[in-house]
């Protein structure tokens, strides 16, 4: 073989890159890869497009043709004149009833509105722990402010409740070092003493005139009621659920027995049964007219219900922790409370977040069940007064669509927050 062959051509630089063939790049490629990769895929894609088309074909003209100004369904139909179209006018005329119920005084709508806005400020430091801790003071005050805004009446009622709790807390701080039992039960006793004395001294809370006049619980309704029940019950049931979960794990037999019986009993009963008990049975135990407020009865029942579920979710989180974590706490010389607070619960709660959110979202939607005990929440308003009015009977899709939209916004918000929280708390290296 010779080595000094004349070389006719040597490429000294790279060939310029050709553009890829048009079907291997850009939207065409994406469509090919994602929508028509295999024959089965193609069939599914076509079916899905057909389904979407049929849905949109039905709903878009219906939405676009929607009538927003009309005094009644009959007039809507006259305007539409046979064409397909929604009658959104019902939302325009009854929006206040959907949001606040039909009995809340119209000139006081700003009060629950303000309470709703303040809710975000109160919830923010709890939900986003990067915010300054000082904001938690407002969170602690919020329940009293919200109560005063929504129910109205004398400011002394909520103030007295606040003073009682503060007095109890001070007592607890002072005496808990000697003995937990003295501190805890003494604090409760002190709070009750303050409430009793204050209740005797202060004038009766009802105000009948003016911007802060009292609104009875019976007059609450609409989506406001769902929000109030949802927020109150979720925030109450979380600490109770934690206590129940720890109690169930406890080595003290009586505490454990009480917790197990409570959880198993409440979980074994449908929520609607508990609501009927709240509405109907409790009415028999109090003299007529002097019973405990229906709203409070319902809050207690729903809180019990969701606390039992949350307890089980958290127990799952506790069980998922390796035994070594408990032993680590013991070996550091931490007592029970410290070990739980510093080592066990932070990890267990982190594991339980999806479950807790699941229960919370479910609970929030379950608040619509109160419509069967003749409380006028959002669904109760639609099914009762609005669909029973001469003007609007026969309007279903618009009203229930609106209700679904409100619930979706809220529940989707909760879900998005929980996913953010999981990412934020992710300390493992997956």
């Amino acid at each position: 073989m010779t080595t000094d062959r004349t070389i006719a051509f040597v490429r000294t630089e790279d060939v310029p890159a050709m553009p890829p063939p048009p079907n291997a790049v850009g939207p065409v490629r994406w469509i090919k890869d994602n929508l028509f990769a295999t024959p089965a895929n193609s069939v599914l894609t076509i079916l899905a497009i057909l389904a979407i088309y049929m849905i949109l074909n039905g709903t878009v003209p219906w939405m676009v043709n929607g009538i927003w100004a009309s005094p009644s369904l009959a007039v809507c139909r006259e305007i539409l004149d046979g064409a397909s179209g929604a009658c959104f006018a019902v939302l325009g005329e009854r929006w206040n009833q959907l949001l606040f119920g039909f009995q809340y005084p119209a000139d006081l709508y700003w009060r629950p509105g303000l309470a709703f806005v303040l809710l975000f400020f109160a919830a923010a430091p709890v939900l986003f722990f990067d915010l300054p801790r000082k904001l938690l003071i407002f969170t602690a005050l919020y329940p009293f402010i919200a109560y005063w805004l929504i129910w109205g009446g004398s400011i002394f009622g909520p103030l007295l409740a606040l003073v009682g709790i503060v007095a109890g807390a001070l007592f607890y701080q002072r005496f808990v070092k000697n003995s937990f039992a003295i501190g805890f039960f003494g604090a409760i006793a002190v709070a009750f003493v303050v409430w009793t004395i204050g209740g005797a001294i202060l004038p009766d809370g009802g105000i009948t005139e003016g911007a802060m006049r009292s609104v009875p619980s019976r007059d609450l309704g609409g989506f406001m009621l769902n929000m109030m029940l949802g927020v109150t019950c979720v925030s109450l049931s979380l600490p109770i659920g934690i206590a129940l979960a720890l109690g169930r794990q406890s080595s003290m037999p009586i505490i454990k027995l009480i917790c197990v019986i409570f959880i198993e009993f409440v979980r074994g009963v449908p929520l609607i049964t508990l609501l009927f008990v709240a509405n109907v049975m409790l009415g028999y135990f109090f003299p007529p007219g002097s019973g405990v407020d229906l709203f409070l009865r319902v809050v207690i029942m729903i809180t019990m219900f969701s606390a039992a579920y949350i307890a089980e979710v958290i127990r799952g989180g506790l069980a998922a922790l390796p035994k070594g974590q408990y032993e680590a706490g013991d070996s550091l010389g931490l007592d029970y409370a410290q070990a739980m607070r510093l080592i066990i619960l932070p990890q267990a709660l982190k594991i339980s977040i999806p479950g807790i959110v699941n229960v919370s979202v479910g609970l929030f939607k379950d608040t619509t069940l109160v419509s069967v005990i003749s409380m006028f929440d959002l669904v109760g308003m639609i099914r009762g007064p609005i669909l029973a009015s001469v003007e609007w009977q026969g309007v279903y899709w618009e009203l229930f669509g609106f209700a679904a939209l409100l619930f979706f916004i809220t529940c989707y918000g909760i879900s998005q927050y929980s996913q953010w929280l999981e990412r934020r708390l992710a300390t493992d290296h997956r």
Partner: protein
Amino acid sequence: MKKTAFYGALAVAGLAASTASAATLDDVKARGVLNCGVTTGLVGFASPDANGVWNGFDVGVCRAVAAAVLGDSDAVEFVPTTGKTRFTALASGEIDVLARNTTWTFSRDVDLKFEFVGINYYDGQGFMVPRDLGVASAKDLDGATVCIQTGTTTELNLADFFRSNSISYEPVPIETNAEAQQQYIAGACDVYTTDASGLAATRASFENPGDHVLLPEIISKEPLGPLVRHGDNDWGDIVRWSLNALIAAEELGVTSANVEELGAAPTGNPEVNRLLGTEGELGAMLGLEADWAKSAIAAGGNYGELFEKNIGENTPIGLARGLNAQWTDGGLLYSPPFR
């Protein structure tokens, strides 16, 4: 109209427990407000309007009683009740009177220990079919699919009717009236059956009411009336005679327009005088003011006026008087005499 032994037991337990409210009249007067149980919403019978003010035929009864007792037709606290909570609300004393299109039946009267004080609407179960079906009588409905609310007396009535006429049907069970309307409109069933007043109200909400006909057969008796607890006959008398006053007023030609004039001074008709308190002591016998009936009639008008305003032929619901006409016009309304 659903009723289970459970609620029956509750009601009985409630009666045993609540002996406190023996003198309902005193309680109502002390409270200054009548607690009246109504439905959470039934077209024409009771529903709050856009301003939250309750209106309707049953509501009119509540207002008349409040006017008779307290002299003020607005002194009513309307307590909305569902089919499931209505009896316990009454038995527990939460409400003083229940005016909620409740059918007067033997077991409710006797077993649940309530007292029906009269009948303010004679209803009955009817059928609605699309006009296209070309059916003129319920007896032609052999093999039809029927939308029927489960767990109600209407379901049992339907089975009885078809069996006694030896024809067959296929039930489409549904839960609520709203669902029934949707199913019927969507063509899931040929026939929708429920109380005739409900059918009329449902038909009125359709886009083309003329495309649907109500069949002439009424297959059950559904006398609807206000009721009170057993054990306080004085209070029962007051509610009974308030209702009778509305009915008698129509018979005697006393309306909300002329009641002031007729009640100002004795007229030539002694029964009108006794009713309106310008003669005799009827009000005092009930423990009420002499002009109790005058107030009751002035509240919303006599029976006929209430009917016309809320469910009559000039409203979208468009119910004819039918059985609910005065006995002098061939109906069943027949108030005992005021003397």
